[in-house]
């Protein structure tokens, strides 16, 4: 049931976003710290180490933690200012029940009783799967594990999925197919030791800024840099070779590069024969992809494609990195497989300074996808449909295997099922689909049709505005736990302060809910460490084996790389050494992939390609970063980036307000005319809601394997606003 309880303006007045600009009492009042707590950033998957400054039981600042080896004190602007989310006037401090005029506080016991009772009533009437859980990859491993267990054991629904569906799933599915394991193959230290860094669809300088330092240190040693991106991003500006690919044509480009590598004799025949299967099918599949044959399609002159193949072939050691730019597609999995084909065909993996990684986006983008909050997965990165895996996890949880729900819907499918009335109840946390899913109007409609929607959140996100009941959760700095970084390194997040007001730590809320759902004994955790110890035990024997990782070991060695099956195992910074992959036969798999056009290509009516992404000062749906004033000042509102040649054709001047129209909706915003983007493509960052939401325009089209949305290509037209 949830149209907004009152006009959006009234909700903004009451709950924000309001920008916070200073520590409590101002900078002058900050004074000497009471204590300092070494922890990690609450934002992206780099998980930079940082020191939180605590004064009067409040986090009042951030200092560099120069001893943490990954970032050595380096931070991006989000990390520097993240403390401004603490002590924030918008913070939710009590459970809120929607009323006819807005939200009204209610006691915790009543909120939890109602939540459990309403979910149970819906399940009694419509079946267990009428209630779904949407979660997020910013949660610690402990919380992510517990959310999966809550859904499958306490609620007994098969529909649990997370916002990593918009992030890591294309890479994850492709890695699993090719390698039998889903994790960056190399630690970041290998970037510094390589001869060529090949970056595809990764705006490294804005979305994983610390990686820039690794790339430059490699270049200091003489490494070359190739960047594939439709926008000339800051990291692309100085590249040795820049390939401005037309959005949605990555498979054709990658097949053409491999085609050329084969022609140049760059295939490592010995490696292919000994450590892989399926190369002949790939060789056949790429036969038609000569650079000259695809240059018009991919939008890059053939000689540049050849140059990329020459650089790749000539470099003894290479590191290939990609991110959402090639993954947010209806062929996201194919794009990643095409990258892996290039790596495998040339045997460039599993060695020092030589390998491959996807750059995880979210804070716990790696760990958040391993321990059972995904619709197709159980803890330890096990497969929910694999009978052996099911039996292992059911035994660990003390339930019959038959009682363990089977594979459920992906996050976008959950929203679609809510829209058609099949899913009637929803518990959501750490996910703001109204801003982050494509076709925002549809997402809002779906939430409005729910009978009972409970959101756990620390701020009233645009999604939580639609909830019947909002439970106040905890910030990153208010809880202990672990996260798994972009490298596969498990690190410790440390609690610096207690949650304010009546806000509770998410795992405490989950345990209290489980108790009311009749599963208290299975959720009798008193600390995050107890949850982690259960996670370790349950992950034992799985692909993502954390059994040997303890809080003490993490503290001692500044993180431990999984797989780490026993306490005397050193952990595994580099995968695939000696060409040993994780399929039962030890071999990697090639997958032949063919180019397919985007779900919605340009035409006469909608002649311009829209691609979306991020800016350095904002993070994902902006629930936190749109509340931090100095970050908003850096880039206050979305603009549509377009090339001067396109602007001239449209008659649009820099700064002029234009209407961007797709088949889903329209957006009115300022044009930014810059020669750093392909002339056939425009770009809008997606961090904003409502009338500033790029996802009003994007399309509900998904990768058939991974279910990741095609956020990087759809068709739009641009109209001048009549003067």
């Amino acid at each position: 049931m949830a149209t907004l309880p009152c006009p959006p303006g009234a909700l903004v007045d009451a709950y924000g976003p309001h920008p916070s600009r200073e520590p409590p009492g101002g900078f002058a009042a900050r004074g000497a710290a009471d204590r300092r707590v070494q922890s990690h950033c609450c934002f992206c998957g780099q998980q930079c180490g940082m020191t939180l400054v605590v004064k009067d039981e409040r986090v009042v600042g951030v200092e560099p933690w120069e001893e943490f080896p990954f970032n050595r004190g380096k931070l991006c602007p989000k990390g520097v200012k993240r403390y401004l989310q603490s002590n924030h006037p918008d913070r939710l401090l009590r459970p809120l029940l929607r009323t006819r005029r807005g939200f009204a506080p209610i006691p915790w016991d009543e909120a939890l009783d109602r939540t459990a009772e309403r979910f149970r009533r819906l399940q009694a009437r419509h079946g267990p799967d009428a209630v779904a859980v949407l979660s997020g990859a910013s949660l610690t491993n402990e919380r992510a594990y517990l959310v999966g267990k809550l859904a499958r054991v306490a609620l007994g629904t098969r529909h649990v999925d997370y916002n990593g569906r918009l992030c890591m799933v294309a890479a994850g599915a492709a890695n699993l197919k090719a390698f039998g394991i889903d994790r960056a193959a190399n630690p970041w230290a290998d970037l510094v030791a390589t001869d060529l860094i090949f970056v595809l669809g990764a705006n490294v300088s804005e979305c994983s800024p610390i990686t820039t330092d690794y790339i430059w240190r490699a270049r200091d040693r003489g490494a070359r840099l190739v960047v594939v991106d439709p926008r000339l991003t800051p990291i692309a500006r100085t590249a040795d070779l820049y390939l401005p690919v037309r959005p949605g044509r990555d498979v054709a480009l990658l097949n053409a590069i491999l085609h050329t590598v084969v022609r140049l004799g760059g295939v490592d025949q010995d490696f292919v024969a000994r450590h892989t299967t399926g190369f002949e099918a790939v060789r056949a599949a790429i036969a038609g992809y000569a650079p000259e044959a695809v240059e018009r399609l991919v939008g890059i002159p053939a000689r540049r494609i050849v140059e990329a193949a020459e650089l790749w072939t000539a470099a003894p050691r290479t590191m290939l990195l990609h991110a959402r730019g090639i993954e947010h597609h209806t062929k996201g999995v194919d794009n990643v497989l095409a990258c892996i084909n290039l790596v495998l065909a040339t045997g460039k993996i599993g060695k020092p300074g030589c390998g491959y990684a996807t750059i995880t986006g979210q804070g716990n983008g790696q760990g958040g996808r391993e321990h059972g909050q995904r619709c197709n997965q159980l803890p330890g990165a096990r497969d929910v449909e694999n009978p052996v895996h099911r039996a292992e996890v059911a035994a660990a949880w003390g339930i019959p295997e038959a009682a363990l729900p089977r594979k459920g819907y992906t996050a976008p499918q959950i929203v679609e099922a809510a829209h058609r009335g099949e899913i009637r109840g929803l518990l959501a946390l750490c996910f703001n689909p109204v801003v982050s899913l494509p076709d925002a109007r549809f997402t809002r409609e779906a939430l409005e049709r729910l009978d009972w929607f409970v959101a756990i959140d620390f701020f009233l996100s645009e999604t939580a505005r639609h909830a019947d009941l909002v439970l106040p959760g905890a910030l990153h700095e208010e809880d202990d736990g672990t996260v798994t970084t972009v490298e596969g390194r498990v690190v410790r997040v440390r609690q610096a302060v207690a949650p304010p007001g009546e806000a509770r730590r998410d795992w405490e809320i989950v345990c209290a809910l489980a108790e009311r759902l009749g599963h208290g004994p299975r959720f009798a955790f008193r600390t995050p460490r107890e949850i982690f110890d259960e996670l370790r035990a349950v992950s034992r024997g799985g692909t993502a084996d954390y059994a040997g990782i303890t809080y003490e070991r993490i503290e001692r060695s500044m993180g431990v790389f999984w797989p780490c099956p026993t306490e005397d195992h050193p952990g595994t910074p580099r995968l695939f050494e000696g060409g040993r992959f994780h399929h039962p036969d030890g071999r990697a798999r090639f997958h032949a992939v063919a180019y397919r056009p985007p779900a919605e290509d340009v035409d006469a009516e909608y002649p311009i390609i829209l691609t979306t992404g991020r800016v350095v000062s904002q993070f994902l749906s902006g629930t936190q970063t749109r509340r931090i004033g100095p970050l908003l000042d850096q880039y206050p509102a979305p603009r549509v980036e377009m090339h001067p040649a396109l602007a001239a054709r449209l008659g649009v001047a820099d700064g002029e307000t234009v209407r961007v129209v797709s088949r889903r909706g329209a957006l009115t915003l300022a044009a930014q005319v810059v020669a750093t983007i392909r002339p056939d493509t425009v770009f809008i960052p997606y961090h904003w809601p409502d009338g500033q939401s790029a996802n009003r325009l994007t399309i509900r089209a998904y990768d058939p394997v991974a279910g990741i949305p095609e956020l990087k290509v759809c068709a739009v037209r641009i109209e001048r606003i009549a003067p």
Partner: protein
Amino acid sequence: MSRTLFVDPQRCIGCRACEQACSECPGHGGVSMIHLDYLARAASVQTAPTVCMHCADPACARVCPADAIEVDDDGVVLSAAPERCIGCGSCALACPFGVPKLDAARALMTKCDLCRDRTAVGRAPMCATVCPSGALFYGTPEEAEDGRRARPLARFRFGAETVATRNALMVPAAVDTVAVRHGVEAPRSRAERQLAECLW
């Protein structure tokens, strides 16, 4: 030579971590003493931080009618002494790099003092500590040059005047002075040329 700050605009990614971290200093909370600019955003994403270069013979101190700007024993040019500064803004006009800013409300000039509180105890200034790309680096000239595709340069020519500085700019070519001129269009980078030849 002792350690100082090296600015390598080639590496700058425009993230503004330097400004955000500088603005956390309790001495000037909320205001950054380092400034980041796009050089010509319509044409390029090239950005560059501007920070006090700590001139050997600082024009700001020379022109100050109140003798408010001191140079310490390490050659660091300090912010105006609040008890002396008359807020006339002469320093801001005189500085060839455009560094000193006038806080009109307080009638006081403020500028980068190379994080004296940090450098005095052997730590790097905050901007160079957080800079995620190494565009700001604190160390010796030998460390700055080690391996980089650029060398440090601490002499600038503005018209007829040559200015020697404590901090250095990392420049790609073997030149001994940077001639600062106005209105010169920067040559396009290789990547910028490669974008211009894309097929569409």
